[in-house]
C-alpha cells in the first residue's frame, strides 16, 4: 500500500479494480517503481472518489474482497445514526427504501446534514472528544452547539479554545477546554497534543519515547512550555504569566532548560526583554493578586503569549500536518470505526497509517478548504466504502479492520443509544410525522433533553470498552426504565402496537420501529411462537416483553 505512489500504478490499479477480484494480483508488484514525491490524486476530485480510489488500491494489494453494499434500510440507519445521532423513524426509513431516485443517497446526506439533528449530534461528538469526561458548567456544550449550527471551521474552534478572549462572549465558553485542565500542566500539554495533534507525548516526560524516535524529552517539555504560564485567576478567568520557564532533568542527569518547541521540532524564540529585579517582583505580585483577589482588575495579556504562538505554529503552512491529519483521522474513526492511524493518539513514524496517501489527500483537502468538517463528513458518507456491509460473507479469513473491506460494528454513544430508544419507543406514526414536518426542530430539542437522563446511566465508551453487566441489569430490572420504555399509551410504541389486531403486522411494525427493518421470515415465525405462548399471560405483557427483547438486542445497541 505504502509503496503505491506513482500515478501510473494508481491508474493501473484503478483499472484492475474494475475487473473481477480473482484477477492475479502479481501484476501489481510495485516495489521497484520509482516513487515520485507526493503524487496524490488531483485536489479537485470529490472526496468520496478519492476515498474509494485509495481503499480499492488497498484491497487489491491486500488481496481481499470487500463485503457487498449494505441494504437501503441498513444505509439509512447507519447514516442517520452518524449524521443525526439517532435511528431513523419508520417514515424516514420507508421513504428512503421506497425511493427509486438516483440521487436518493446524496439527497439523504444533504437532508440530514441540514436538519436540526446534525448540529446536536456533531456537538455531542465534539463534546465527547474534548470535555465530556471533565467537570464543566454546560456553557461549553452551548458554545459547541452554536458552532456546529454555523459550521464554524475546526481551526477557528481550535484558536478559540486556545486563545479565546474572556471579554468576548462568543469566545469565552471555548476556554472551558483549558480551564478544566488548568490545574495540571501535564493535562494541558498532553490533552492538547492528543486531541488536536493526534500525539500522546506523555511517554516522553520521564524519558525519550521508547518506541518513537520522533519524541524526546525536549518535545514534551517544549510543548509543556507553551502552557506553563497559563493559570486560572480567582475570578475563574484564564490568564498567562508574563514570564516562566521549565527546567528538567534528562535520564542521563543533565539539567536542561525547555525551549518552545512544536512537535515537528520547529522552535520559537521569545523576544528578549530586559527586566529589572523590581519589575520582576511587581509582575510576580500581580500574578499572585490575580490568583487570590476576586476584585483584581482584568489580567493583562502579556506581550508574548505562548499559547497564541502555539496556535500560530500549529496552523502554519509548514507545521499544520499534525493539526489537519489529527482531525481527519478522528472524523474517519467516528464514521468508519477505526482510524487511518490507529490508535488516534499515536500519529507518528513508528505507527504508520493504513492508507498514508488517503490520509495526506484528505488532510490537504481539509486544510485547503477552510477546515470545513461538515464537508469532510459529507464526503465520507457518500463514498461507496462507507456503505459496505458489516457482515462478512463467504469463506476465508475476515479481512483485517485496517483494510476497511468489511463495515465496522460500532457501539453507540450513550446519547445515541438514549435518543434511539426514545425514537424507537415513540408511536411510529406520530414521530414520523414530526420528523418530516416543520415541528421537528422543537421536538428534537425536547428529545435531546429527555435523552440526557438515560444517557447519564450508560457508561461512556473509552479505550478497551466493554459493555458491563451493570448495563444489562439496568435494562433487565430497573423499574423506571421499564416503566418509561414499555409505557402503554397512545403516543408510545407499546400503545400503538396494542391496537394492531393482525399479529404479523404487529411484529412487522415492532421491527420497523426498533430495528429499522422488516423481520425475516424465520424471525416472524419465532416471534409468533413467542407471542402465542406469552399471550396466555396477557396480551399487553406479551407485546411489552417482545418490545423489550428488540430494544435490548445488539442490533439496536450498535451502529453496524
Amino acid at each position: 500500500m505504502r509503496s503505491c505512489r506513482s500515478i501510473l500504478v494508481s491508474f493501473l490499479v484503478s483499472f484492475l479494480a474494475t475487473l473481477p477480484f480473482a484477477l492475479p494480483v502479481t501484476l501489481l508488484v510495485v516495489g521497484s517503481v520509482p516513487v515520485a514525491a507526493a503524487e496524490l490524486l488531483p485536489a479537485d476530485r470529490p472526496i468520496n472518489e478519492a476515498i474509494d480510489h485509495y481503499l480499492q488500491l488497498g484491497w487489491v494489494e491486500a488481496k481481499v474482497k470487500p463485503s457487498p453494499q449494505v441494504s437501503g434500510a441498513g444505509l439509512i440507519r447507519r447514516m442517520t445514526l452518524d449524521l443525526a445521532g439517532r435511528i431513523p423513524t419508520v417514515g424516514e426509513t420507508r421513504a428512503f427504501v421506497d425511493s427509486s431516485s438516483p440521487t436518493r443517497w446524496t439527497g439523504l446526506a444533504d437532508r440530514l446534514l441540514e436538519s436540526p439533528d446534525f448540529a446536536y449530534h456533531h456537538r455531542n461528538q465534539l463534546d465527547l472528544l474534548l470535555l465530556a469526561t471533565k467537570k464543566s458548567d454546560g456553557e461549553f456544550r452551548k458554545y459547541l452547539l452554536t458552532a456546529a449550527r454555523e459550521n464554524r471551521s475546526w481551526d477557528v474552534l481550535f484558536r478559540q479554545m486556545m486563545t479565546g478572549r474572556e471579554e468576548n462572549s462568543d469566545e469565552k465558553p471555548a476556554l472551558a477546554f483549558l480551564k478544566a485542565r488548568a490545574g495540571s500542566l501535564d493535562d494541558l500539554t498532553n490533552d492538547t497534543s492528543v486531541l488536536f495533534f493526534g500525539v500522546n507525548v506523555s511517554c516522553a516526560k520521564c524519558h525519550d519515547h521508547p518506541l518513537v524516535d520522533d519524541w524526546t524529552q525536549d518535545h514534551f517539555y517544549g510543548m509543556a512550555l507553551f502552557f506553563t504560564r497559563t493559570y486560572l485567576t480567582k475570578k475563574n478567568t484564564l490568564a498567562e504569566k508574563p514570564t516562566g520557564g521549565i527546567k528538567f532533568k534528562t535520564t542521563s542527569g543533565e539539567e536542561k532548560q525547555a525551549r518552545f518547541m512544536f512537535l515537528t521540532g520547529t522552535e520559537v524564540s521569545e523576544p528578549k526583554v530586559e527586566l529589572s529585579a523590581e519589575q520582576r517582583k511587581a509582575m510576580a505580585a500581580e500574578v499572585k493578586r490575580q490568583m487570590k483577589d476576586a476584585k483584581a482588575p482584568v489580567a493583562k495579556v502579556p506581550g508574548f503569549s505562548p499559547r497564541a504562538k502555539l496556535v500560530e505554529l500549529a496552523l502554519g503552512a509548514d507545521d499544520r500536518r499534525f493539526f489537519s491529519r489529527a482531525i481527519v483521522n478522528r472524523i474517519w474513526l467516528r464514521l468508519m470505526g477505526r482510524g487511518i492511524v490507529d490508535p488516534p493518539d499515536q500519529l507518528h513514524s513508528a505507527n504508520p497509517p493504513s492508507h498514508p496517501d488517503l490520509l495526506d489527500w484528505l488532510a490537504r483537502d481539509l486544510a485547503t478548504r477552510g477546515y470545513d468538517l461538515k464537508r469532510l463528513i459529507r464526503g465520507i458518507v457518500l463514498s461507496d466504502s462507507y456503505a459496505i456491509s458489516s457482515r462478512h460473507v463467504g469463506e476465508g479469513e475476515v479481512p483485517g479492520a485496517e483494510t476497511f473491506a468489511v463495515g465496522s460494528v460500532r457501539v453507540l454513544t450513550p446519547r445515541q443509544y438514549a435518543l434511539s430508544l426514545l425514537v424507537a419507543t415513540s408511536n411510529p406514526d406520530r414521530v414520523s410525522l414530526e420528523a418530516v414536518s416543520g415541528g421537528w426542530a422543537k421536538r428534537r430539542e425536547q428529545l435531546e433533553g429527555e435523552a440526557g437522563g438515560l444517557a447519564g446511566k450508560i457508561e461512556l465508551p473509552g479505550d478497551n470498552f466493554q459493555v458491563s453487566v451493570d448495563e444489562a441489569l439496568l435494562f433487565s430490572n430497573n423499574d423506571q426504565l421499564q416503566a418509561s420504555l414499555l409505557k402503554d399509551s397512545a403516543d408510545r410504541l407499546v400503545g400503538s402496537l396494542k391496537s394492531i389486531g393482525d399479529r404479523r403486522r404487529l411484529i412487522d411494525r415492532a421491527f420497523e420501529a426498533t430495528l429499522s427493518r422488516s423481520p425475516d421470515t424465520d424471525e416472524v415465525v419465532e416471534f409468533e411462537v413467542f407471542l402465542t405462548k406469552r399471550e396466555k399471560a396477557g396480551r399487553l405483557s406479551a407485546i411489552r416483553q417482545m418490545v423489550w427483547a428488540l430494544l435490548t438486542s445488539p442490533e439496536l445497541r450498535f451502529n453496524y
Partner: protein
Amino acid sequence: MARFRSELCRPAEHVSRRGFLSAAAAGATAAGFAQDMTVLDVLKNPSLAAEIKKQQKHVILLWLAGGASQLETWDPKPGRPTGGPFLPISTNVPGIQISELLPKMAGRMQDTAIIRSLSTGIGDHGGGASLMETGRRKEPGLQHPDLGAIIARELGRADSQVPDYVSFYASTEGRRKGTSGYLGARYAPMFLSDSMIPQNIRRLESLSDIDHRERADLRDLLARRFARGRHSRNNVLGSHTSAYQRVRGIMASEELFSIDNEPAAVRAKYGPTQFAEQCLIARRMVEAGVPFVKVARAWWDSHGQNFETHQELCADLDHSMSVLLDDLEQRGLLENTLVITLAEFGRTPKINGSLGRDHFANAWSTSLTGCGIKGGTVYGKTDADGQNVAEGKIGAGELFATIFKALGIDYEKEYLVGSRPIPISDFGVHPIDAVLT
C-alpha cells in the same frame, strides 16, 4: 470457562482471554493455543474441574479509610515520645509484637505477614487513596485500574455467574467508588452504598419469572442472528452478549448479599457491627467464587483524639478480621484467599496538640494474610520513633507486585493500552519475596 493462574497451567502470555476463548470456541488448533487447549480438556474431567474451582484465588481487602495509625496497630513504639499510651503485646509468633489494641490478632499471627516499611510519599486523602488503590502515581491521559479491577480481570471468569469485584463502602468513607480505568466497566466494582443489596439485581414484581426468562431468550435469539458474520473491535459485541447472559446468574447471587441464611452461631461469632457483617458477606462471596471483595471501615482520620478513635476502631478491626480469618481457615479457603489491610497512608509518629496524629506517608504499615503469604513474618523496619524507614523501604508498586505474586499472577505482565504496553505493577518494581511462600 475459567482462566487459571494455578499450578495446573501457566498463563499464555500476550494471548488475550477473549482471543483465546473465541479461538477455542472456533475450534482453532493453532500451535499457540495448544497449551490452553489442554486446559479445556482438563475441564471435561469433573473431578479436576472441581479441583480447579477450589484453587480459584480470591482477595478480601479491608480498607481502613482515612488512614489507620501504624503505631496503634502493626508497629508500636513503646517508651518513645511518639509511642502513645498503649503497650505492645507479644503474639503467638515469637519475636513479633503488635499493639495491645489487637489482642485477638495477636493470637493468630501464624498466617499473617506485616510490612512495616511502606514509604509512599503522598499525604492527602485523594492522592494517597488513588496511589494505594492503583499501585502507582497518576499519569496524564491514562486512568489506571485499581487493584480490584486488575484482580477481576486476572482471576475472574468471562462467563462468571457471580460478580468479579464487589465493593462495600461505609457511609463515612469519602465516597470513593474505585475505578476500572482503562480496563473499562466490565471490571468495575459492583458497588454497594445505600443498601447491602446491589442495584437492579432483583426482578421487578410486576414481571413474572417466566416472562423475565423468556424475553431474555428471545433477546438472545436476536443477538445470535445479529452476531453471525460480524466482528467488532475488542469484541465489544461479544461483551454485550455476555453481559446479558450473566444477568440471571448475578440475580441468583442476590442471596450471597444476605446473611439471613447463615447459621445463628456463625452470625453470633461475627457479631453485630456493620463491618463484621460485611466481612461475613465477603466470606460468602469468596466461597461462591467472587475474586475480589473490598470492605471499607471508616473513619480512621484521627487528627484529634487519636487514641480514643483507635481504641474503638481497632476493637472492630481486631474482632472482625480474626473471626474472618478463622472462618476462612475452617472452610479451607484461607490458603487461596489473600486478606489485606491497607489505607491511603498511616499517621504521624508525632502526637499533635489535640492528641491526634496527622497524615503520614513516610513510614507506615500494611498486613497480608493467607494465600501465598509466609505467615508469622515481619518485613522492614522503622527507626526508633517511627519517623523514617530504617530497613526495607518499599512503595505502593512493590506492594502490588507482592500481592500479584502471592496470587500467582505474573507481576510483570503487560496490558496493551492503545499501542502502549503498561505493566500491571509499576515500572521496574519487584515483589518482596521474603513475605511470600
